[in-house]
C-alpha cells in the first residue's frame, strides 16, 4: 500500500519507521474496506444470485421442472381486488404501528431512564417479556382473550362496562385492532430497548449544564433528548416501516391466511398464498418485487429527508 497516502493522517503521531504492514493498520483509507468486507463478501456470495433470480422469476411461469418466460403477465395479474385489499390493510396497519410503536416507547424509555423512576430494571424487563414468546403461542393467547363468546375475558369486561360484546375477528375494524394490539404487545419492549440503549449515549453533563441554565424537563426533552436520539429514532422508523409492510404472522395467527372478506390479508400473506398455497411462484415473486421497491423507495426518501446520506452528519 502507498505509504504516502496514509502519511498525512499519521505522520505526526507515528514517528517510528513505517513498514508496509504498519501503515496498513494505520491507514484511514484502507480500514473502512476491511471493516465492510464481511458484508460485501456475504452479499456477493449469498444474496446477489437469489435476488437476481427472484427478479427473473417474476417474469416467469413456474411449474414443476418447467420455467417459461411470460413477460409482464405476473404483474398484470396483480390488478385484482384481493391485491388491493392487501395493499390497503398493509398500509393502514403500518400507519397504526408507526403512530403507536415509535412515540410511546420513546416516552416510556425516557421515563424509565429518568431519576424519578422506581425499580427501572424490573419494569424494563416486564415490558420486554412479551417479545420472548413465540408468535404462535402469543397468537393463541390473544385468540382466547379476544374470543367471540360472551365469556371470553375481553368481552366479559366490555359487558361489565355496559358495552356490547364484539366478534373481534369477524369485522374489519376490530380485526385491525387485533393485529395492531398483538404487534404492540410484542414489539413495545423491543423498541423500548432500542431507545434505552440510545439514551445511554447521551452524556449526563449535557443535562447538568442545561439545568444550570434553568431549563425545565420539557425543554430538556425537546432540546437535548430528542435531537440526540435522532439516529436511533431513524433506525426505529426505518425498521418499523419495513416491519409494517412485511407483516404476516400477526394476521396468520388469527385467520391462518384466509380471513373473511380479506379483512386480515396482508401483502406478504398474499405473496405466501400465491407462491406456496397456489404454487404460483411467478406471481408471488412479482408481489415481492413490488413490495421491495415500495419499501425501499419510502425508506430512501425518508432517510434522505433526515440527511442520512450526507457526507458528514
Amino acid at each position, binding site marked *: 500500500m502507498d505509504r504516502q497516502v496514509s502519511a498525512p493522517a499519521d505522520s505526526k503521531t507515528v514517528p517510528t519507521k513505517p513498514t508496509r504492514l504498519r501503515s496498513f493498520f494505520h491507514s484511514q483509507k484502507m480500514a473502512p474496506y476491511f471493516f465492510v468486507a464481511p458484508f460485501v463478501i456475504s452479499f456477493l456470495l449469498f444474496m446477489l444470485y437469489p435476488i437476481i433470480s427472484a427478479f427473473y422469476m417474476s417474469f416467469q411461469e*413456474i*411449474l*414443476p*421442472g*418447467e420455467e417459461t418466460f411470460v413477460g409482464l403477465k405476473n404483474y398484470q395479474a396483480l390488478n*385484482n381486488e384481493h391485491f388491493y385489499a392487501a395493499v390497503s390493510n398493509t398500509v393502514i396497519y403500518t400507519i397504526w404501528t408507526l403512530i403507536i410503536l415509535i412515540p410511546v416507547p420513546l416516552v416510556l424509555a425516557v421515563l424509565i431512564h429518568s431519576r424519578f423512576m422506581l425499580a427501572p430494571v424490573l419494569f424494563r424487563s416486564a415490558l420486554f417479556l412479551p417479545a420472548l414468546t413465540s408468535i404462535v403461542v402469543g397468537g393463541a393467547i390473544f*385468540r*382466547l382473550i379476544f*374470543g*367471540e*363468546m360472551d*365469556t*371470553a375475558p375481553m368481552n366479559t369486561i366490555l359487558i361489565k362496562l355496559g358495552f356490547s360484546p364484539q366478534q373481534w*375477528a*369477524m369485522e374489519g375494524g376490530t380485526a385491525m385492532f387485533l393485529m395492531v394490539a398483538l404487534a404492540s404487545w410484542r414489539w413495545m419492549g423491543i423498541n423500548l430497548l432500542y431507545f434505552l440503549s440510545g439514551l445511554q449515549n447521551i452524556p449526563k453533563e449535557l443535562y447538568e449544564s442545561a439545568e444550570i441554565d434553568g431549563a425545565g424537563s420539557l425543554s430538556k426533552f425537546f432540546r437535548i433528548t430528542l435531537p440526540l436520539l435522532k439516529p436511533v429514532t431513524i433506525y426505529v422508523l426505518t425498521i418499523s416501516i419495513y416491519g409494517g409492510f412485511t407483516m404476516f404472522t400477526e394476521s396468520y395467527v388469527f*385467520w391462518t391466511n*384466509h*380471513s*373473511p*372478506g*380479506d379483512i386480515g390479508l396482508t401483502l406478504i400473506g398474499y405473496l405466501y*398464498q400465491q*407462491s*406456496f*398455497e*397456489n*404454487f404460483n*411462484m411467478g406471481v408471488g415473486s412479482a408481489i415481492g418485487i413490488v413490495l421491495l421497491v415500495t419499501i425501499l423507495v419510502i425508506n430512501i426518501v425518508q432517510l434522505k429527508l433526515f440527511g442520512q446520506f450526507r457526507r458528514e452528519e
Partner: protein
Amino acid sequence: MHNKLLIALQSGVGAPDIADIEISKFGNFLKGSNIPLAELDDLIQPEKDKFIQSRFDIYSKNGHNYGIDFHVGATVMYYNKEIMDQAGVKIDDIKTWQDYAEAGKKVLAATGKPMTTVEVIDNWTFWPMIAQQGSDMFDQNGQVTLDNETNIKTLKFLHEMVHGSKIAVPAPGGNHHKEEYYGFMNKGGAASVLMPMWYMGRFLEYMPDLKGKIVIRPMPSWEPGGKRSAGMGGTGTVVTKQSKQLELARQFLGYAKLSKEGNIRVWKTMGFDPIRWDVWDAPEIKEKNKYTDYFGDGIFDILLEIKDEIQPVNISEKTPQAIDLIRKDVLFKPLKENSMTPEDALKKAADELRK
C-alpha cells in the same frame, strides 16, 4: 411444512422418500407435465375393488394415481341425543334435509337451542352438502361449476336456516375448529353438527363432556333415496421421484396403507375410517376402544350402510384458489354478514375462478 417439500421438489434436491400432502395442496404437485411424484397404479390395481374408489381419484391425474389416503372422510351427522330427546324428536325419523329443518324448528321451540352450526369461514358444511348431490366446485374436467343451480339452491337452504327459520347459527369462531366452537358445543350449544368421520377425534379431545350423548347417523338426503354422504378432506401419502430407494419406498407405502393390517391400524391408532372397506366388519375393528367408549358400538355399521353412497369430490389445479374464495367470501357474506345473496356470492366467485 409443505412449502419445504415444494422447494425441495422444484429444485430437484432434498425431498424425502415418502411425504404426506394435504388434499387442498395436492393440486400444486400435479401441475404441468413433469409430475415429481411416483405413480402408484400397479400397487393399487390388484385389490382395487376392496377400496372406496373415489379416494384414489382425488389424487390422480390423466388416469394415473400419485397418492394414498388415510381415510374415507365420510361425512356424517353428529346428533346430541340429549337435546333431541328434550325436543321430543326421534333422530331416526330424520331422513331428508326437509325432515331435518322441521326437526330443527321443534328443537328451537322446545329448547331455545339451534339445531346446528354452519361453517362460515370454512368449507366443511357447504361442500359435503353439494357433493352428496353429485355437484361440486368443478366438474370432472376441471370446469368451474361453483355457481350451478344445485349449489345456489343449497346455499339458499343454508341461508334460510340461518336468517329465516333461525334454526342454525354461524359456528362460534367461524368454523368447527375454533376454541370458541369447542367450548360452545361441549356445553350442549347446538343439537347437531355435520362433519366427516375424522372429526370424532375432536370430540374426544376437546368436547369430553359430550361422551355418551353423541349419536352418529348418515347425512340427511335431498330427496328420499338420495345419497347420504360425501368423502371430505384427506391427506395423500406420496413417494417422490427423487427417492434413491424408489421401489422400496413404493412397496413400503403399499404395505402400510393398502394392506388389511395397515387399514386396521389406521382405525385403532388414529380413529379414522380406513379406505379399505373390507376391513370395516373385521373383528379387530369391532374391538372396544376409546372411540367406541365415546360414540357407542355402531360406528362401522353406519359406514357399511352408506358405503355406496359416499360421493367423491373433484380436485383441480384451481382447488386451492376456490377453497380460499369460499373461506373468505362465498359463505361469509351471505351466511354471516347477510350482505350478499347466495346467488350473487356464488356467481362472483365463479367468475373470478373462470378468469
